[in-house]
């Protein structure tokens, strides 16, 4: 499971890269509490509207299909591969 560390908001979830349902945008999302971050440098999370978690860029859901966790290749293409705390090849 690829992730960027433990979510500081809930102390439990993994911060993972999520593709919105339009598959055009990626956001960092806690897989436990849905806290969201635009960049890894952001410390304060954003909380998107429940239950659909609309993408701030296009409004497509970050929960409903075809939204999904980003692949390792996508994370690397975005230049965040070195920031991963854990990755499974």
């Amino acid at each position: 499971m690829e992730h960027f560390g433990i979510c500081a908001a809930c102390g439990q979830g993994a911060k993972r890269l999520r593709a919105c349902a339009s598959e055009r945008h990626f956001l960092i999302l806690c897989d436990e509490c849905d806290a969201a971050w635009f960049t890894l440098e952001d410390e304060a999370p954003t909380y998107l509207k429940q239950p659909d978690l609309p993408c701030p860029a296009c409004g497509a859901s970050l929960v409903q299909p075809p939204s999904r966790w980003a692949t390792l290749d996508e994370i690397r293409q975005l230049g965040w591969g070195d920031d991963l705390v854990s990755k499974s090849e």
Partner: protein
Amino acid sequence: MGRMRQAGHRSGRARRPVWLTLAIIALAAGTLVYRSGFDGAIERADGERGPQARNSSTQEAEQELHGAESETNEGWGELTEIAPGVFESTAGLVYKPGSREGHRIDHVLRHAEDAPERPIHGVFDGGRDEIFAVLDEAWSIARQRGPPVKIERNGQRTTYTIDMGRRVGYVGGGAGLRNGYPAASHIRLVLEDRDVITAFPLNP
């Protein structure tokens, strides 16, 4: 497939007048009360898939209303469908559709068992009924805002960390594996208003 369970009969309740019982029956008509089966599969009594539910007998509905008025732990963790797909617990926690699991009930129930692939993953003791009961107990403590509760607010989101004063689960996931699966005595409850976002046991 979900294992349907009947709500247990309770003893020691005072008798109430027939007219009051009839009024409660009328109020409860059409209300779904359910106790959950354990394995996460969800099947409504009407055959639809969805957050688990079954049609209650009138007596069970009456018990549900009785329990909601009470601050005792009788009936804690029972979930009543108050709107399509929206379930309220005895203590007033609300579980709605949402999360990648499709419903907050299922999101919380990920913590019914370990998830070794996650970096840290609190696991509740007991089965499904015990989990929703201990969450109601935690919420009841949290509402009293006493010393065993730490509260953090961020906009409409509130995170409660409640010291339950006893083991309520263990720390699993990768951290649990590395540390011998230590017992967890706290519950973290993440809410928006009374809507449960997530809840799990931990050692803060």
